């Protein structure tokens, strides 16, 4: 039985208006907060369209898409699997209407801005911005009409798109996505293509100093279209061929794929060049920390918001032990001699932080560790400790890492150290996951009391998690210090902890590949998009909220955690004990 509700025309219109209003407000948010203007500085396609503009156009289109989606949902609220057709006039109409509303919001902004000086309060509303949102027409009639017209048309198209054939829809959506992505990383493409040995014109054809070229854009679209048209057939063929191979050959193929991946990893810095290698190293710092925090939060279930403290202890102890700065330390060890000491010191720091918080409940633990992280930073900043760790001036003259007599210079070489450290952290996490230790951690995460009742000494395992987590962070910190050569307290703010936590959540808590994906998305992308800088944490915040609400298991959830953070699992905690109440001293008559 399908419940297709028959909506009156008025309520369909209301729905479209509602979506338009909602998206219109979101559009205003993007404008007021400064995202549109900031991203206008960068072209998506050189001299054709800027990223700021494409964002606006996407929002326009999005309103139409969303309104038809909502209409569909309203017509058929229960059975997602059944297609209920939305008739074309309605799709076009709903889309157009919602788009009109979004456009009207922009027109309204232009009018209001011409009457009163909004800029006194909202710094982003500059004359430039008005030019951008009116697509260059400014405060003229055309400036009012063009956004509205564009928005209406695009939304109507997007609305129609929602009901057309799936492959057409996919082509359009994927083209937009990939063109945008290619534009975002166009610098990287450009740098990678323009290197000795490559013909110069290659980089010039596809990319410019600012965004893709038209040729580049067409190429991306062509590749997407080709993939949509021919992709399924090719995949099918490959699968068929693979299934006819002998098991031994299949195994060899798998080995081949793995070694290819390994080779790729090893050659990566050479392939991508200097600047991207630097970015890779920065991602590496967070990947290592991600693995460490994953043990503490993902496996043992201890929400540690002060993880940056261990990163800091690692970096500072490495700096103090190796620096050539005359008034600090005086040990002047080599990196390799200092490393074991650093790891041990940080491990002990992990135990010291862990011990007092052992009996603390989850949310209190989170806040206290956050506090520890802040205390660490205040201490690092203070004059009191500055004779030992440099205070606000930090520590300089940390020597480069050397192997024997060879000094490792440049991001392309350091990359291998990060790769090695990342591999170690990954290996440890992976091996521990399927072991008595890992099971004890997970049991503790799931239900501490019951874990105790199964013989798990939770005190020991909590300390162990803190200790190992700290040691892994110290690895990252030590490399960080040696890589930069100087460290300042400001590098160790709570934002580091939040970034690591965010990348875990985005990747999927408990999932090791998730850590890598999360780090690339949350650390890598913003590095490539310099304009992104100021909005990075805005995005993290929005991501944390939406992930927790819509997809708490992350992009790449680990199998057993897939539904960990979902509501349904609470059913077990809440299994009704029939008539007998469970003991709660607060209502002291239960059994």
């Amino acid at each position: 039985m399908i419940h297709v509700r028959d909506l009156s025309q008025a309520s369909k219109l209301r729905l479209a208006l509602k979506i338009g209003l909602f998206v219109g407000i979101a559009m205003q948010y993007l404008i007021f907060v400064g995202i549109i203007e900031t991203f206008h500085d960068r072209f998506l396609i050189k001299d054709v369209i800027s990223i700021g503009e494409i964002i606006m156009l996407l929002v326009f289109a999005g309103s139409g898409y969303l309104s038809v989606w909502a209409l569909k949902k309203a017509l058929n609220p229960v059975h997602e699997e059944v297609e209920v057709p939305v008739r074309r006039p309605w799709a076009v109409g709903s889309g157009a209407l919602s788009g009109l509303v979004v456009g009207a919001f922009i027109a309204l902004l232009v009018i209001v801005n011409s009457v009163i000086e909004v800029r006194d309060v909202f710094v982003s509303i500059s004359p430039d911005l008005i030019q951008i949102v009116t697509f260059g027409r400014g405060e003229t009639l055309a400036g009012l009409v063009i956004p509205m017209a564009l928005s209406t048309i695009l939304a109507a198209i997007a609305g129609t798109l929602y009901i057309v054939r799936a492959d057409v829809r996919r082509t359009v959506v994927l083209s937009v996505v990939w063109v945008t992505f290619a534009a975002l990383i166009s610098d990287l493409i450009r740098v990678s293509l323009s290197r000795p040995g490559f013909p110069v014109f290659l980089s010039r054809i596809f990319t410019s100093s600012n965004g893709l070229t038209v040729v580049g854009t067409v190429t991306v679209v062509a590749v997407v279209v080709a993939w949509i048209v021919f992709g399924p057939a090719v995949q099918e063929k490959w699968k068929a061929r693979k299934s006819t191979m002998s098991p031994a050959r299949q195994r060899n193929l798998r080995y081949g794929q793995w070694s290819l991946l390994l080779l790729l990893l090893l050659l990566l810095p050479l392939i991508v060049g200097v600047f991207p290698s630097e970015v890779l190293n920065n991602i590496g710092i967070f990947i290592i920390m991600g693995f460490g925090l994953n043990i503490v939060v993902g496996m043992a279930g201890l929400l540690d918001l002060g993880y940056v403290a261990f990163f800091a202890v690692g970096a500072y102890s490495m700096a103090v032990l190796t620096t050539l700065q005359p008034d600090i330390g005086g040990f002047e060890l080599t990196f390799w001699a200092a490393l074991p000491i650093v790891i041990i010191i940080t491990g002990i720091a992990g135990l010291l932080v862990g011990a007092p918080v052992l009996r603390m409940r989850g949310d209190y633990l989170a806040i206290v560790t956050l506090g520890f992280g802040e205390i660490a930073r205040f201490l690092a900043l203070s004059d009191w400790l500055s004779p030992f760790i440099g205070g606000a001036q930090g520590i300089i003259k940390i020597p480069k890492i050397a192997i024997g007599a060879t000094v490792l210079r440049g991001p392309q070489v350091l990359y291998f150290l990060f790769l090695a450290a990342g591999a170690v952290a990954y290996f440890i996490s992976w091996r521990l996951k399927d072991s008595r230790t890992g099971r004890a951690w997970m049991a503790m995460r799931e239900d501490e009391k019951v874990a105790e009742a199964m013989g798990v000494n939770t005190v020991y395992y909590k300390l162990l998690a803190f200790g190992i987590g700290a040691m892994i962070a110290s690895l990252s910190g030590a490399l960080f210090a040696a890589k930069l050569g100087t460290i300042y307290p400001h590098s160790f703010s709570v934002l580091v902890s939040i970034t690591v936590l965010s990348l875990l959540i985005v990747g999927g808590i408990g999932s090791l590949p998730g850590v890598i994906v999360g780090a690339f998305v949350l650390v890598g992308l913003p590095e490539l998009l310099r304009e992104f800088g100021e909005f990075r944490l805005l995005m993290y915040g929005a991501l944390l909220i939406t992930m927790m609400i819509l997809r708490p298991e992350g992009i790449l959830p680990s199998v057993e955690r897939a539904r960990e953070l979902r509501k349904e699992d609470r059913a077990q905690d809440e299994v009704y004990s029939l008539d007998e109440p469970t003991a709660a001293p607060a209502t002291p008559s239960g059994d």
Partner: protein
Amino acid sequence: MATAIRQRLGSGFSWVNLLLWLLRIGVVVLVILGSANTLISQKYTVANWVSLFFSGLAQGSIYALIALGYTMVYGILLMINFAHGEVYMAGAFTAFFVASATAKSGLLESNPWAAIGLWFLVSMSVATLVAVLLERIAYRPLRNAPRLVPLITAIGASYFLQYTFRGLYGSNFRSYPEVAILRGTVTILGFNVPFVQLFVILAAILLMLGLNAFVERTKTGKSMRAVAEDKEIAGLMGIDVNRVIVTTFAIGGMLAGAAGIFRGLYQPQGISAFMGFLPGLKAFTAAVLGGIGSIPGAMVGGLILGLFESFGPNLILEGLGIASANQLRDAIAIVLLVFVLIFRPQGIMGEKLSEEKA
């Protein structure tokens, strides 16, 4: 005998307990030593201490107002609304723009109290709106989720709000316009106290008394207490639990908005989008110190924290020979948080939460 001792210590005698005891003793010794040293050295005059007292009290009132929001939300939902510091920031920001407008229009000059009243009206409304939106968008969908999920969401919301405000209003520090009537000092028992401090203290006390009356006497206030105690039974009485929760966020937001204004009035360095984080953490400390969930506890906790923070560096740290002790003002507030959570998580006035409930 040995068994008896072990029994008394409960099931967990261990190295951890020993460590905690050592920590406790160590802290007490350090506090006593430091204070004694400072007092003996007579570095500060009585007037110095009195001035620290009032500035601590004023700062403490601000913490107390923010802490009330934490504690009320915790009392009802058992969640830490980590983004509450940003509600306070929103209040301070809104008031800044209203204040500039009133200064420009001359209202502040001609009728200062009306102008200040207007600041409060507008900024408390905006802060309330932010708090209510926060509940609606970020927390309500997660009402039944495991405990840590709303906490993570709250952290996300905190950063989202910080950077939204920075995007909207820019990253400059902004200072409130000079308010003539709040300038000057008042002499109390022969000591000069800045009038603005007194104003903050008195206004905060007024707000807190108002809140107390609201919660104790009005039907809505009583229904809030009923929901805080037992949502299911409150629902059985026909109370609309969701509405009560929204009301709680709204009231918390109002108080935080007012606290934002006080901060703007009282502190010269101005306000920024990131001003909410540390006071938020400290106000949470105050709420825990007073016993989270307890309204009078949050008030007392806030005042104690303000005083502790005010006296701490000069009294304790300097006595221990720590240079530039004032740099560690924020750190010792957080140290206090850590110690309270370790040794007395139920706070001064809170009842002990049973493990089941917790």
